[in-house]
């Protein structure tokens, strides 16, 4: 039996893959798949399908992904990802996913950090449309008794002893009833939005608890300092709302209003890719120019997009702007700001998605895989689908009915006021532009909030420590006190926690990136 935590893209992909191989699995989620954060993914999914006559290849997809991630991603994993991407897309197509098409071929759009059109899409609701097809496919295996859904259940603990995972403990959100379950575990539980509540484009359900449990139980994490700020978001009630990169892929342009004049800053500084530079760069430029005294705002100019493109490819995005801003983007400029959108860091896994714990795998946004220091738009859904599949194909069969339960209970929550101060401190220390003074200041604020017996507080501190120790600038981690990218830091940040006398002691170290093996050389 495989226990899968999370029923978004990565979890569904793992469950379907297991079921296709006749392997039974439990699909555990707080809410049904329809509520997963994956339904919010908008712009598209990358694969070198080369349907646009540009002579694209998986090799170029590999190169763009490695360069976009500033060479921190595992090249062997990225090699496999990009090679398998076309097959993943064809599979989605066979499931009837409602992609935009031209004849019987998938249309591809331009996306950030990539010179060729490589991003398949369904208007700007690609995540939702893919999820619908996958949910239908999973249902088939539910009916066959291969996928057992545990809706309204959440992870309480992982049963890890002596470097081996024998199961997990979940609880029924409705009743509070605790349920221990045996078997190997795939974590597919999404990003760390809950550490930045109200300040991200994600959902309220990705609260970070699963990650806190994992770190506290000895699971290795990686690259937590790399937090992606998406350059184009708007503030709505309770959160940040994404304006898809598709807006720029289809011709939208960013400008800053300076002394009343429109300055198309991305096009001026980066003539080749312009508005479609990788997200870390666009967000940083946008942030920098907005902070100039003579700048009164950054805007997205979509007024030159044709009516055909609006109706066929971006009608959903247009409706959203009108609903939330009362602005028609076909006629008016949209004020935008960068906001937290994706966590490149997470659970450290090998190329097969195995963690440092036997019997424990991780895939999707909760895992640090494929994206290095900065994720390219269109690679998150691909990484989730391929990662979930890879995890399910490689996970060993552990047939245990009853897991070996942990000896102690974890302290996972903070009171509302301490939680709020924790989140504020994180946000202040982990902005688009960082420096040692701010990071240390935030760490001191967290130290004042309590001791290291609380696992959530220990995790929050670990994120800041990663940012502190990486004394260089790379991808989404920009240190104004160390603005250059340094070869000695072309390494994975590794985070591990140990518990001594009830206190968590986190250790940050750096590990070499794997060399590309012959097997994976193109």
């Amino acid at each position: 039996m495989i226990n899968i935590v999370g029923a978004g893209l990565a979890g569904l992909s793992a469950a379907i893959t297991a079921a296709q191989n006749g392997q039974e699995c439990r699909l555990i989620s707080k809410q049904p798949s329809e509520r997963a954060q994956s339904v919010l993914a908008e712009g598209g999914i990358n694969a070198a399908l080369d349907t646009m006559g540009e002579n694209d290849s998986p090799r170029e997809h590999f190169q763009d992904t490695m360069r976009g991630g500033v060479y921190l991603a595992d090249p062997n994993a990225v090699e496999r990802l990009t090679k398998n991407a076309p097959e993943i897309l064809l599979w989605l197509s066979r499931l009837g996913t409602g992609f935009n098409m031209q004849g019987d071929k998938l249309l591809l759009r331009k996306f950030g950090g990539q010179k060729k059109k490589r991003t398949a899409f369904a208007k700007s609701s690609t995540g939702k449309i893919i999820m619908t097809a996958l949910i239908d496919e999973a249902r088939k295996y539910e009916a066959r008794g291969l996928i057992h859904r545990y809706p309204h259940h959440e992870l309480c603990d992982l049963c890890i002893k002596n470097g081996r995972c024998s199961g997990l403990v979940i609880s029924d959100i409705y009743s509070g009833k605790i349920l221990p379950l045996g078997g190997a575990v795939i974590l597919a539980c999404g990003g760390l939005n809950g550490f930045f509540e109200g300040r991200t484009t994600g959902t309220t359900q990705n609260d970070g608890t699963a990650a806190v449990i994992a770190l506290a139980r000895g699971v290795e994490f990686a690259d937590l300092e790399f937090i992606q700020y998406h350059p184009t978001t708007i503030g709505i009630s309770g959160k940040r709302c994404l304006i898809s990169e598709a807006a720029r892929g289809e011709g939208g342009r960013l400008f800053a209003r300076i002394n009343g004049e429109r300055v198309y800053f991305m096009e001026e500084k980066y003539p080749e890719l312009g508005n479609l530079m990788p997200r870390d760069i666009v967000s940083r430029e946008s942030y920098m120019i907005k902070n100039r005294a003579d700048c009164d705002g950054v805007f997205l100019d979509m007024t030159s997009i044709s009516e055909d493109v609006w109706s066929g490819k971006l009608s959903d995005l247009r409706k959203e702007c009108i609903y939330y801003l009362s602005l028609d983007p076909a006629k008016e400029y949209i004020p935008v700001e960068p906001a937290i959108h994706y966590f490149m860091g997470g659970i450290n896994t090998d190329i097969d998605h195995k963690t440092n714990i036997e019997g424990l795998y991780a895939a999707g946004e909760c895992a640090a895989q494929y994206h290095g220091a900065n994720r390219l738009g269109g690679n998150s859904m691909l990484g989730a689908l391929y990662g979930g599949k890879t995890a399910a194909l490689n996970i060993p069969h552990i047939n245990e009915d009853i897991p070996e339960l942990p000896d102690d209970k974890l302290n996972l929550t903070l009171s509302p006021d301490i939680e709020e101060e924790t989140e504020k401190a994180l946000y202040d220390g982990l902005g688009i532009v960082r420096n040692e003074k701010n990071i240390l200041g935030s760490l001191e604020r967290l130290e004042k909030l309590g001791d290291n017996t609380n696992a959530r507080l220990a995790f929050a501190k670990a994120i800041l420590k990663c940012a502190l120790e990486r004394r260089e600038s790379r991808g989404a981690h920009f240190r104004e006190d160390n603005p250059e990218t340094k070869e000695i830091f072309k390494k994975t940040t590794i985070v591990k926690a140990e518990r001594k006398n009830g206190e968590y002691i986190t250790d940050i170290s750096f590990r070499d990136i794997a060399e590309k093996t012959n097997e994976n050389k193109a």
Partner: protein
Amino acid sequence: MKIRLDILRKKFNEDKQYTQSFEYEYSDAGATVAAALCDINKREPLLDINKAPSEPIRWECSCLQKKCGACAMLINGYPGLACDAKLSEYGDTISLAPLKKFPQIADLIVDRQSIFDSLKQIELWFNENAQPNEKRAQLIHEASRCLQCGCCLEVCPNFYADGDFKGMAAAVPLSRLVSEASETEKKRIFAEYEKHFYAGCGKSLSCRDICPAGIDTEYLMVNSNAAAVWKRKRR
């Protein structure tokens, strides 16, 4: 602005429903019912309008931007999403209650499992490869947008839980299958559509006006009826 929220509550495993009121003050013009519920639950201590200590209000939410369907509830008696209900569009008192066609678990949480059971019962999946086609792309996109929130079932005069008629929450995803099924598989899917939707739908179209995702249910129904029931060429 100061408003009052009257919430129809129930504790887990207890039958008794009761109404509890909370005061809420907001300044953000776009503030929603969802934001109010989030804020009230963060209060320390959590007091109701009579300054009596209160348990956190149990409700479901996830995306806060109308894309996941988690927070469907009755707002002033009408089903809708809490994140789609702007406080400024209501008066100074708003009533919140759980959807009525599903069992209430606690407070505003209902168990919508019957929706998912229905989809399983009508075998809503492909056994063979789908046949996507550019000409049908618009329809397939529309048919893939259902949130499974249950609002359409709540207002539907023909739907009740566990009946043969599965309502628009099944017909929307079914219309994707009707449109994309292979020649050999379409007979099965057409029959499911006819039996579990067409035969029971009274065409009141209340679903069209209530859908928080704005799905054009009439357009999907017209197409599915034509293909599955009248055996006209599929679009």
